[in-house]
């Protein structure tokens, strides 16, 4: 390699390195700016309009907002913990039911090779033909006719319905990694279908189950529309209360943002706990497509 050419590659490497540093810095600011904004407002000591003063950093940081939220002293946050409980209830039930229903279905269709079972799972994707938000009016009416008006279960039913198709897709893709012969060997040893599901399928599918669980929880935790329409004010979730007040400049926004920060923590903790599984199953699912 000639000297000039060597120098050129060297220049190029430095340029690439500098470019990726700039990109990294941009991504850092881009990702954290709205999060920083939440902190900035939450750490403001005063009630009222002062939270939005165009400050770039908290001039007198104070934890009053957090304190008033936790003790439920702030206006509009009198029922914070019971609303938080409702969010947790909906999130956990959605998570458990989605994992259960989608794993049973993909086991029956993929492993027991139920004839025409693929029809059922194709129908799953059809659920996405009409986005969830488009179905809110019929849902509202149907839940009344089911006797689920103002019930947390109505919201759970909706979230599970919209989470399962994608969950089944993920499971079907991931299950191709597990050789069918494993099931056959167990069957020859006299295991029933249920035993194969419990002892072989579920443990080997753990990474896919983790991803599906996180996906379902996030779906329920993130949603505004369904709980807002299907629940009455006494049964509200944290997300809905915050969403309904979002233009209210009189609300104590330091406490509201503190509540928001508390609300976003549980999914982050779950993602952190499941991070290995998430990476493992994302990679394998992709190699299937």
């Amino acid at each position, binding site marked *: 390699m000639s000297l000039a050419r060597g120098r050129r590659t060297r220049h190029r490497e430095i340029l690439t390195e500098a470019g990726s540093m700039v990109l990294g810095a941009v991504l850092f600011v881009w990702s*954290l700016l709205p999060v920083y904004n939440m902190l900035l407002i939450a750490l403001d000591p005063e009630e009222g309009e002062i939270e939005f003063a165009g400050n770039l950093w908290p001039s007198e940081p104070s934890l009053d907002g957090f304190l008033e939220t936790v003790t439920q002293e702030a206006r509009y946050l009198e029922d914070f913990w019971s609303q938080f409980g409702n969010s947790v209830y909906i999130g956990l039930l959605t998570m458990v039911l989605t994992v259960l229903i989608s794993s049973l279905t993909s086991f029956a269709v993929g492993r027991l090779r139920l004839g025409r079972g693929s029809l059922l799972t194709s129908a799953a994707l059809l659920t996405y033909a009409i986005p969830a938000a488009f179905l809110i009016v019929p849902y509202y009416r149907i839940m009344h006719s089911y006797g689920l008006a103002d019930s947390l279960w109505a919201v759970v039913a909706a979230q599970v319905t919209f989470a399962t198709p994608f969950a089944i897709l993920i499971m079907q893709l991931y299950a191709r990694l597990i050789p069918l012969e494993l099931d056959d060997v167990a069957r020859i040893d006299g295991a029933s279908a249920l035993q194969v599901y419990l002892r072989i399928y579920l443990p080997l599918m753990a990474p896919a189950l983790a991803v599906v669980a996180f996906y379902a929880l996030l779906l329920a935790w993130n949603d505004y529309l369904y709980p807002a329409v299907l629940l009455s004010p006494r049964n509200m979730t944290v997300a809905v209360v915050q969403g309904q007040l979002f233009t209210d400049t009189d609300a104590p926004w330091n406490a509201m943002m503190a509540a928001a920060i508390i609300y976003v923590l549980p999914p982050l903790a779950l993602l952190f706990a499941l991070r290995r599984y998430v990476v493992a199953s994302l990679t394998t699912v992709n190699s299937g497509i």
Partner: protein
Amino acid sequence: MPSGARRLHGPDFAWAIAFVVPYAVVVVAFAAYPIGYALWMASRPSLYADLVADRLYLTTVINTLFFVGLGVNLKMFLALLLSGFFMRRRRWIRALLPIFILPWALAAVQACISFHWMLIGEQGLVDGVLAALFGIDGPIWFNNRWLGLGSNIVAYIWKWLPFWTLIFLAARMTIPRRIYEAAVVDGATGLRSFIHVTFPLLANLYLLCTLLSTLWTLGEFTTVYLVSGGGPAGSTEVLATLGFRYAFDASKPALGVAAVMSALPVLIPIVILLMRRLQTSELQL
């Protein structure tokens, strides 16, 4: 998958049926029934005459096209490029990944509210930054249709870019290194290696993800409802939020359903294409 290679019999068949019953119940009671109900509610032709007569509806359709067109394609393209950035083997890039993923794991309602207050005008953080860095007064973002629409799109991309980047990143990690090494021997590096090696291998996935994302973005409610709030004067509404306003603010539920169902001519071809694509990629779903 060799279905039909073996017929299910006796207890196995019973188990298989028992296993799919919960899902079948969910599909019938909570998917098929509401969809049928929606189609029935939206079947009166006069509703569509009412829609076309409403000027807000036309504005909303145009907004939805912008929101979906830019929101999906910009996001997917950036995700594809950024997945390459995160493939670089540097410790600081690996440390940056969890921060980059944060928006995805953050609750959407709270994130959108933060966007709203960040852009609220001179009291907002963005205008504060603009004033500090460049000494200019930022605009009042939500007083202008295009700025409001743009804010919605940026917030939406902010929220969902990490998810799709992760998908592409995972796909890139499954491409064997020796393919790239062979490409380097053939003289393909940098951009050419991307065009001739990476992209062909990811093209199918890219198309699948774009289709799926189009479906999801068409139904996006939270971002528009909570960032611009549909304002000023309803000029940044999309179909999902307009349907909601008709149904619950104006008490015209049938008109609300008709407004969102008018997207069916776009939705159905996408779903058919998506199902075909999934089948050709030998995926028995």
